[in-house]
């Protein structure tokens, strides 16, 4: 009872302090504001506070190296220092003396895998309703919501993606209930107390859009627009018309109420935000391509794109990537025509192919997904080398996410986002041995201290287990 009383007193004190009853508030808002135009929008209101963790200059010698852009070096040398890839080459590559050396013989070195489609953090584990923050399914048009505001940094899935999947960067998207789902965020796969500590510095945001069954099902079942695919397109076009007018006024400095939805879409029309469009069927992707021309924006990537193989020529002509699974099919009508050669067929047509997960389990095995697709392609006569296939896992997604200048391949000067694999990463028998992000060793299979354990897992059965 004494304890409770004490607590009550404490609570009362806090409550009063929070109300600002006893002291005059020291905030600027207290002063009467002079009548004037609204302040200019803050360009980056939730800025990244990510800083690379400390690393040591390290050379890996003797490994097979995929440089990420299609190059392969046997008995390679990769040198990481100051957070960057400093040198990459054959056994004779000059390396300073006195740096930490890793014997990479029998192992593979690749750029870290980048997942362009993840819901880690916004649909975290445990997947209880209280943590379900991926779909603002209250309106089909919600470009004003930002996925980063839903990301729970304590999602244990991030650590699995690192340790088992070699994931060094990932894009967290809103879900696909809405036609305009909201802004995505690109993260470094490092644990953080805050999402800002995970945000990939300088990475553009994306806009998640969705075709097809999901929006029409979610809103149609409530007797709301859209309930059909033509309804989907009508709402899309109406929204882009509004955005076009908003942008026109914004460009000219004409007065208009600030609208966070239209801010997002105007930024898309300005090319500052990249469009990531969930779309399964070939015919719908073709309409989206036309719509993007009608309103003057560019689609970066079609996500899921299970029928990309039917329009691989259109994707190539329009410079649009397809982010795909290797073998998912049949879970709904618009995935009925999925085939296992989708990824190699898109690649073979000269279009940009990406392997994505959309799944907290799949993100741990994207290299295996690529391997299956690669083998299926070879069996139908599409000969792609292992090192070129790696472009599906890091270089292509990096470019599609607007971070290809700093990561996604092992070129000197780029971020040292690197995985050392304990064998050929296209073998089922291979796992990450070590993972560096910006040159910092964030995972080491041989060192339990280099295995992140989220707050959620502390004190639970299996804390710190190999997983």
């Amino acid at each position, binding site marked *: 009872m004494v304890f409770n009383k004490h607590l009550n007193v404490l609570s009362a004190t806090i409550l009063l302090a929070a109300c600002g009853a006893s002291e005059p508030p020291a905030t600027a808002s207290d002063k009467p504001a002079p009548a004037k135009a609204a302040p200019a929008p803050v360009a980056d209101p939730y800025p990244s506070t990510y800083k690379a963790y400390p690393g040591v200059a390290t050379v890996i010698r003797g490994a097979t190296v995929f440089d990420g852009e299609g190059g392969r070096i046997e008995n390679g040398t990769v040198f990481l220092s100051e957070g960057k890839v400093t040198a990459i080459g054959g056994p004779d590559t000059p390396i300073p003396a006195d740096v930490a050396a890793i014997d990479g013989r029998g192992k593979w070195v690749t750029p870290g895998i980048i997942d362009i489609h993840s819901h880690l953090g916004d649909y975290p584990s445990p997947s209880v309703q209280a943590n379900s923050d991926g779909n603002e399914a209250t309106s089909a048009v919600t470009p004003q919501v930002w996925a980063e505001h839903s990301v729970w940094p304590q999602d244990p899935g991030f650590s699995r993606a690192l340790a088992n999947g070699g994931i060094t960067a990932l894009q967290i998207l809103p879900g696909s209930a809405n036609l305009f789902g909201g802004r995505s965020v690109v993260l470094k796969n490092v644990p953080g107390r805050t999402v800002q500590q995970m945000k990939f510095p300088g990475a553009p945001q994306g806009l998640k859009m969705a075709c097809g069954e999901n929006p029409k099902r979610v809103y149609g079942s409530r007797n709301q627009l859209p309930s059909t695919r033509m309804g989907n397109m009508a709402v899309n076009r109406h929204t882009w018309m509004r955005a076009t007018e908003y942008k026109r006024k914004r460009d000219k400095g004409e007065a208009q109420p600030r609208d966070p939805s239209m801010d997002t879409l105007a930024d898309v029309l300005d090319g500052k935000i990249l469009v990531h469009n969930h779309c399964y069927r070939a015919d719908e992707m073709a309409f989206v391509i036309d719509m993007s021309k009608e309103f003057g924006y560019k689609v970066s990537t079609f996500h899921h794109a299970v029928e990309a193989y039917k329009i691989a020529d259109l994707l190539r002509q329009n410079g649009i990537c397809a982010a795909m699974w290797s073998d998912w099919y049949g879970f709904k009508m618009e995935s009925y025509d999925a085939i296992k050669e989708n990824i190699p067929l898109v690649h073979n047509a000269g279009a940009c192919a990406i392997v994505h997960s959309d799944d907290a389990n799949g993100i741990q095995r994207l290299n295996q997904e690529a391997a299956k697709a690669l083998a299926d392609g070879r069996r139908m006569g599409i000969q792609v080398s292992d090192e070129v296939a790696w472009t599906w896992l890091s270089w292509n997604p990096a470019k599609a996410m607007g971070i290809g200048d700093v990561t996604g391949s092992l070129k000197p000067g780029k971020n040292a986002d690197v995985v050392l694999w304990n064998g050929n990463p296209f*073998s089922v028998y291979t796992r990450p041995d070590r993972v560096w992000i910006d040159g910092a060793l964030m995972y080491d299979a041989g060192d339990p201290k280099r295995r992140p354990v989220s707050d959620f897992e502390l004190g639970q059965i299996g804390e710190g287990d190999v997983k």
Partner: protein
Amino acid sequence: MRALLLACTALIAAPAAAQTVAITGGTVAIGDGSAPIERGTVVVANGRVVAAGANVAVPAGAQVIDATGKWVTPGIVAGFTRMGIVEVDGVSQTSDVAANNSIWSAAIDIVPAINPRSTPIAINRIEGVTRAVVSPGTGATMFAGQGAVIDLGADMDAVTRPRAFQFVEFGETGAREAGGSRPAAFLQFRSSLQAAQAYARNPAGYDGDSKDAILPRADAAALVPVVNGAMPLLVHVERGSDILAVLGLRREFPALKLVLVGAVEGWTVAREIAAAGVPVIASALNDLPDSFETLAATQSNIGRMKAAGVKVSIGMIGDNESRMAFQSTQYAGNLVALGKVPGATGLDWAAAFATITSAPAEAIGLGGEIGSLRAGRRGDVVLWNGDPLELSSAAERVWIDGVEQPMESRQTKLRDRYRTASEGQLPKAYER
């Protein structure tokens, strides 16, 4: 009427005749946990395995297939699926998994739902999956009904064993189905089995029709073989404490032939499972605390259970179980991969391969029929172009009951049509 009968007869495609086949020179994995045999021979005749291994003679007149440089194994047995009872998950009319509004539950027999022409059958067949455990899902109560074991052959005669097991949900799902709590689920379970006992003692006197009846008559009758141990009871359960509680049911119902399904936290109570002699059809790679009943999830679960003496196989519960059984080989390969991860517990190759062949067959009571190349087993054989667990490998030829299977599916036909995306002289609809 006669015309109708004729038409029906024509619809039932007769399987091609099973002939004597000798597959020689390949790496032969028997599937029983033994190490693969280099340059072995597999002989199949009259739909059954005659012999497999080194120094096996080729019978006169056999069709000889050279498998040099390739692998020969039993077909994959998908340990827990819903294949053949769903065409498209998102199209409810095509799914016969669960009957939420039925007045029956345990009595439901999945057999009439099985459609050998559903596309997942062919898609999995050409990946080397030859048999599957097919379970209904829960609808009206915690009892889902009676599942079957099927083959994936390209004919209309799919059922290997009807009413092969009863399936029941415990844990979070069972609690929900039973009214909202785990104790309610245990009470429903015990009451239902007691009702079955009462029915068995006096079927005519059983009151299954009144409003107060615990179980409809048909459900009580269906649970009789469960309570007397004639029919395996597959129990979906994940949490360590739930597993122990389920094992404890045998104090009241000693004949229960339990098989655990899922068992993500099985490793935490592995000694107790092993001591109980209860097999587990486990989820292979779950390593996320996806719910509060799977907090201890780790990919080492199967390896640790096996090391503790549990009979473990791989199943697909909650994992695209209507379609993706072909991932079993990848999952087994990943368990081998754990052997190179410090601190992890995996399986050696032979043990991993057994988890997708003989072990699920034994768990369901069909180890003498399917799941290995030991003499007398069904002639389910796959010729692979390499190590069947490796991602680059594929099934090249598949036999089921000794009958060679077609290697086509909707997917291969779509692939062939769209080898190049653009049209030729005519629209794509004219290309096939």
